[in-house]
């Protein structure tokens, strides 16, 4: 299976778009290397803004660039943009409704052993609670390229979180993505798994494992956390058991969003799989995933347990 980085797909696509649309800007906070924006900075220096290690300032500057009629993408580690500059995102971007895209890279636990200062595991909860903010967690590079094209043409503020390392490609260039519309990757009647980001691949792995045991599950890629695809959630509920899987705290993330829909519109048995309320175990992201059952085996186990009850 081909593996590639989502951040690399984002920056390559943004660079190609920015060469044609001179209003597209990229901002970094001493993060051009980690975001993979070096080529952008070198080739389009007049559309690149280095803000230094100052995330609050970077988000404010981006709002000002938007005020000047430009289309800024603020790019850096998701952990800092979702926390250090949270008030700038709230006041200067969401409340002021400025066309700023916050691009959080190396999100979730991708920084693994660097510890929780560098993990972003509350970002979905925070960003989706801000009025008007769109929130996306792409699951692979192909989807990110399409999402980048959408973001470059949209006038709405948005937060995007992606990981760091290469991830398996789930989609082909023929696949089509629409904000607010989840992708149903697999169709099964026994249970439904709704996942986002890197968890989508692991959900398909779980489906393969379960298939061998005669359990057939549906898998949804809810890359579009906000706007959320309520129709897909209602359809998933039709299986009788919904498992949500996310690289995020179990509070207020994808699981919370799905539970908000189902508890009010179609009470359904569900379980939220994510990072528990504890100091997060550290290691490479796959090791963290395995520890918390956020890999193929772990997700398959959670489905089996859910079906027993």
């Amino acid at each position, binding site marked *: 299976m081909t593996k590639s980085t989502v951040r690399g797909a984002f920056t390559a696509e943004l660079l190609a778009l920015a060469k044609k649309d001179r209003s597209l800007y990229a901002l970094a906070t001493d993060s051009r290397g980690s975001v993979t924006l070096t080529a952008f900075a070198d080739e389009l220096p*007049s*559309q690149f*803004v280095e*803000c*230094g290690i*100052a995330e*609050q*300032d970077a*988000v*404010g*500057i*981006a*709002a*000002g*660039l*938007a*005020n*000047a*009629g*430009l289309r*800024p993408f603020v790019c850096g580690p998701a952990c800092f943009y979702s926390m250090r500059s949270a*008030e*700038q995102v709230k*006041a*200067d971007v969401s*409340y*002021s*409704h*400025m066309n700023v895209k916050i691009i959080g890279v190396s999100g979730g636990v991708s920084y693994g052993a660097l510890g929780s200062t560098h993990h972003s595991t509350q970002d979905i909860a925070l960003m989706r609670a801000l009025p008007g903010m769109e929130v996306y967690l792409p699951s692979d590079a192909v989807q990110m390229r399409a999402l980048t094209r959408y973001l470059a043409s949209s006038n709405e503020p948005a937060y995007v979180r992606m990981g760091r390392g290469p991830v398996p490609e789930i989609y082909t260039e023929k696949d089509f993505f629409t904000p607010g519309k989840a992708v149903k990757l697999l169709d099964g009647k026994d249970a439904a798994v709704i996942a986002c980001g890197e968890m989508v691949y692991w959900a398909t792995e779980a489906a393969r494992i379960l298939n061998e045991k005669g359990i057939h599950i549906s898998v949804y890629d809810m890359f579009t956390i906000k706007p959320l695809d309520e129709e897909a959630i209602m359809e998933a509920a039709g299986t009788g058991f919904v498992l949500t899987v996310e690289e995020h705290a179990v509070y207020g993330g994808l699981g919370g969003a799905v539970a908000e829909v189902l508890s009010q519109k179609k009470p359904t048995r569900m379980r939220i799989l994510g990072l528990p309320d504890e100091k997060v175990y550290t290691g490479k992201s796959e090791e963290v995933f395995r520890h918390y059952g956020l890999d193929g085996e772990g997700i398959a186990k959670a489905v089996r347990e859910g079906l027993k009850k």
Partner: protein
Amino acid sequence: MNANELARIAARTRAEALTMIHNASTGHTGGAMSATDILTVLYYDVMNVDPKRPDDPKRDRFFMSKGHSCEPYYAILADRGFFPRSELATFSQAGSRIIGHPNNKVPGVEVCTGALGHGLPVAVGAALGAKRTGQKYKTYVVMGDGEQAEGSVWEAAMAGANYKLDNLFAVVDQNGLQISGPTKNVMALDDLAAKWRAFGWDVCEADGNDMQALLDYFHAEHKQGKPHCLIAHTVKGKGLPFAEGKPEWHHKVPNDEQLQEAYRALGVEEVDFND
């Protein structure tokens, strides 16, 4: 416009702002009064803005970073014709867009402010955007002196100098008081001008309640290659005999007698919010 005419407008603006606060029983009286002369000079003389075209890309940009001093700002925007004066009567009323901090649903207001330390970074972005795209507009931002304790101010100060934003004017309304008392006792700022100079800005100091001094500053030749900072020495509660220099008037509301006393001191007979 000459200093005397501007002073008359500022007196009327103070009376209107105080009336809004009195009617709503809420507002930030002291800082509103200290900043009124700065706002008056900018909106009636210095800045290129067209109330009929609030989104004109060529407009000068203004950011009220000390957003709590919004009452004279709204009064001036209404008087300049950005929105109907009658809306000033709805200040802080349920459902009004004329709320207790600048709201960019109001024509003429660029971004929502009120959380301190936000205006300068946004102003840096607006000024940088102009530089990068060859637009000629200038960017103005008004901050408070208590606000200077916010770290984000200094992040933006560094960026403004780094990008040599000589199209950016930051005014610090240094009235010396904040909600808990004298700024020097809350978090000492001195030497504030030296701090801004050390951050790479072209710094001047002036009496921020003296129209002629403000006109002289804004009409002077300004150095190229550096952003500009005016430390405007002001009096909190300026123009209100009962409030000048008194920390408790940060957000105290005048009673009926005090409102009349203020009108007399300002030489304003009455205030109405008719269109």
